[in-house]
């Protein structure tokens, strides 16, 4: 599996990361070797191993539907870059 610069560019866009040309070059080589490493996992025989989607062998961790305290406004907004009254504010985006 190989990963080209274009793919890295696309992923960077999806992740909203700005990468320069040099970084793109560097990352595509690095990602390539990471994928190579993962490819070796494909060689492991997994016959008889049931598929899994979670690392922990536990399930049904659930909570009762009972109220817990929400945050007070000063905590909610303490790290907000911008706020108006009790709203977070963001640049206008309409999709």
């Amino acid at each position, binding site marked *: 599996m190989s990963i080209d610069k274009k793919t890295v560019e696309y992923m960077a866009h999806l992740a909203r990361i700005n990468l320069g040309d040099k970084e793109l070059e560097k990352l595509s080589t690095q990602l390539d070797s990471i994928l190579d490493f993962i490819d070796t996992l494909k060689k492991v025989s997994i016959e008889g191993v049931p598929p899994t989607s979670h690392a922990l062998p536990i399930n*049904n961790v659930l909570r009762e539907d009972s109220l*817990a305290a929400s945050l007070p*406004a000063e905590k909610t907004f303490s790290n907000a870059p911008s706020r108006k009254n009790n*709203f977070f504010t963001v640049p206008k985006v309409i999709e």
Partner: protein
Amino acid sequence: MSYEVVIGLEVHLQLKTRTKAFCGCSTEFGAEPNSQVCPVCLGFPGSLPVFNLTALDYGIKVALALNCTIQEHTKFDRKNYFYPDLPKAYQISQYDLPLSKNGHIDVELKQGPKRVGITRVHMEEDAGKLIHQDDYSCVDYNRTGIPLLEIVSEPDIRSPEEAYQYLVTLKSIIAYLDVSDCDMEKGSLRCDANISLRPAGQIELGTKTELKNLNSFKAVKDALNFEIMRQTQALDGGVKILQETRLWDEKVQQTISMRTKEGAQDYRYFPEPDLPEIKITQEKINEVKSSLPELPHEKMLRFTKEYGLSVYDAGILVYSKADASYAEECMKAYFSKDKKAVANWFNGALLSEANARNSSLSGLKVAAANLIELIGYVDREEISNLTAKVVLTEMIDTKKTAGTIIKEKSLIQISDTGALDKIARQIIEENPKSVADFKTGKNNALMFLVGQVMRKSGGKANPKVVQEVLKGRLTNA
């Protein structure tokens, strides 16, 4: 060219849990902005979601009521995208192992029942709310993390009317389960529609558009009708349909392209590592199944069998659970074996009273025994249908019984032939022209004379007897 319309609907349903899907914040509607948020639903680093047991139960309930197969193993996935209403930059949803698949509901249409497939019902969390200002947007995260079900239909729907009836049926079923407010105005029920056209007889599907911003069932119907017209014109003119999302604009009654930037969405789904898998045992499924109420369709069938109602009448009666049990109470209390009269009252006079008062049928608070008493007066021909309607209005307004009102206003019908004959004689004398008309075979003339007698009696004459008396006099004269 003639085209076949292919429609699939996606319904998002907010579940009526006290707290959010993955944290203990309240789901109460209408609170101060951002007053029902915590580190989990705001996506603060280090916080961990734990799924709400009741949300799971409600999900299983809905899935079973829609005849879906519950999956033994189900898990959550992250759906990744950037948007300000999504504080974590991903929505917890379900991808390849949804809660349930392969269901169906039976929708009653004018031309008979139709089965619409349900592709899947899966669980996810709601996003926040954006309020756009002139040059910035305000974000309220109170809604973020409220448990949702996404109910996806198969592309089995063939017309806007079918889509409408599907939604009405679905809403009725969910209301019976009491797991959601189903209020489109508050956004607890939302619907998107996929629609494509294909030349009649073609198997391959045409290119579909996705319609959003549908704020009522009527908007769904209107938007689909518009889109059929738009796509038909495009295809007839040789214009290719673009696969795109279009917004319904209520004001101009048109769908408008959203013109999203390059390429399809790439959500990069992957398993949510913060939430372990969920196993649903057969025992659990049986337990929920046995807790399901009788659903509208079963109730409708039972009403046709037990009370001899038509599918149409029964269908209207069962739409709401409270009204259906009120109607059943009345039918049980009704002395005659034929319950059609009760259904007529429900779907006629009672329904117009309810509509006029913006109430449900059971909300009119007319006790079953009192309604049956009123119907009894009509059955015995002691009052006319018209008078009965007036009495009903009075019953609702004053909470008096039919008997009291009829006595107080002396509304009992005059069926005494002697008394009515007197009036008839008078009317015949006063209307020689109508009498002549009747003799030349004009039936309208008789109806006119009946009306005159009715008027003279202050509406209290029994119209049937009046007609007989008049006929007798006219033909013997």
